[in-house]
């Protein structure tokens, strides 16, 4: 989607923005039964290969499968898929920065509060919740949020189904 701006940029016109809403491209695609089935099957595959132990191993696998199902059209999905590499790097960098940060003369970087409007702060919170959307403008952020919420709902449904399945399977022979 093109960014809005004051300058005369080229932009797509209405029929395109309307087709965007349709299934297959919009957030409504997460509602279909087919999508849930695809996700469940892929999730089962991924679960087989989850490394033993480690907190959040299953959670990460589930998220990655979800992001893969998004086919890379949304920002958050791409962010999740590339997160593995960048997460490690970020951790390393953070450690380095903590060690190298000079203690003197930098005691008040946070004092001046630039923006106080509640809307703005909430937007920041939301951008932190949606993966990969920290520096995204508000209209795009809202779009990503829509898709992310739809995808999360689908994920919850599929995982509930799976746990029910496996629980029943575990309970039967016992």
């Amino acid at each position: 989607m093109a960014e809005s701006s004051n300058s005369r940029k080229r932009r797509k016109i209405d029929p395109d923005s309307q087709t965007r809403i349709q299934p297959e491209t919009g957030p409504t695609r997460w509602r279909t039964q087919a999508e849930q089935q695809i996700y469940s099957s892929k999730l089962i595959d991924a679960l087989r290969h989850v490394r033993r132990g480690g907190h959040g191993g299953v959670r990460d696998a589930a998220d990655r499968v979800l992001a893969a199902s998004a086919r890379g059209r949304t920002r958050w999905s791409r962010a999740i898929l590339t997160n593995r590499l960048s997460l490690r790097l970020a951790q390393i960098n953070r450690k380095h920065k903590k060690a190298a940060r000079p203690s003197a003369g930098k005691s008040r970087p946070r004092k001046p509060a630039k923006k106080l409007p509640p809307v703005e702060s909430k937007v920041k919170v939301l951008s932190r919740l949606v993966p990969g959307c920290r520096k995204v403008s508000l209209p795009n952020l809202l779009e990503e949020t829509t898709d992310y919420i739809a995808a999360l709902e689908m994920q919850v449904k599929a995982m509930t189904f799976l746990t029910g399945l496996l629980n029943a399977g575990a309970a039967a022979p016992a």
Partner: protein
Amino acid sequence: MNSGLPEMLHCLNSTSENCEMSVLERQRSRLKWQQQQQEHLSHHHPIPYFNGNDHLSFSGFHGDQALSDLVLNGGAMKPDPDVEHDDFRRFMNYGSGTTDFQMSSALPRTVSCPPYVAAAASVDSAAGKESCKKRKADRSPKIAAEEKKMKGCAEEESKITEQNSNSKSTTTTISTSANKNSKGASANAKKASDAPKTDYIHVRARRGQATDSHSLAERVRREKISERMKYLQDLVPGCNKVTGKAGMLDEIINYVQSLQRQVEFLSMKLAAINPRLDFDIENYILKEMFPACPPPMEPDHPHLQFNTSVEEVSGSGLEMVVDPMDATLRRTISAPITVQQSFLDSSNLNQIQQVTWEDELRNLYSMEYQQGRSTPFISQQITGFLEANHVKLEM
């Protein structure tokens, strides 16, 4: 598209100088057009659709706030919406398709306003002269003449009463927007001249609102944001009660957080069950993975294993069917292993294999979802369960 459009455009283009003749032609074609439209209109919800259009932007329809107000007010009026809205919709579709309206180059101000829209918007009664005048006018001094003509024409010939009231309101809007037109004339002119080259989104300025480029762009942005917030409102339960950005954002944040917590909880549950799966599946996979050259060894193991599971599970005389199933079983068994590897290593799904895997599992899961049958199979292995279902399905 309707056949009336091109011929009307042609009329307009060819006789842009000669106002009188084109007016008659336009009127005739417009009447024809409207007749055609009357046939077509059936299933549209004009008002909601049009309100949606308010937020969206139109290409080629810029510069003349008066006209925009006309159409806006025309849209707001209930009695005669259909014709105008259909016209408008077609215009929009048409306008979006063509980037270089010849009209726009010739007539910077009212520019690419197709005659039927102008006519429909500007009171059927008063079509002739003042539409011509509007199209010719490209400087603010002409607006005064326009106003007078509009008023005059509107008052003399009023065919339809609703549109008569329509015209009255529009004349007032023209007068009020006339002042603002002069401010934004330069910006609009520039926009007009650029229109033929690229297709812009042109926003209509509403009554009482500033028309300079900055505020217009801001308004577009705000409208985009509000449109997206509306979608979110539908998606997030309980968002309808709260209004305003802050409240809705609060709800959205809470909802996202709760969804994420649910996923976390479910993943913990799955992790608790997972080790049992892993054990069984690892045993199975070890048998698969050991042979360096899989093909000769493979057929035996899965065949044997699945023979037993199939017989146990379905027990409905599947022996004869098992042999043809071998090929599919083998395929499904070998496929997922490679698929998982590629998936986890590079996060890129092997599309070809994935497709077959997906198709088969989709069948499986469709059966599952419909019947909810799952329990007796899990006892074996997950893959065993899957293949057994698959076999049953093939049957």
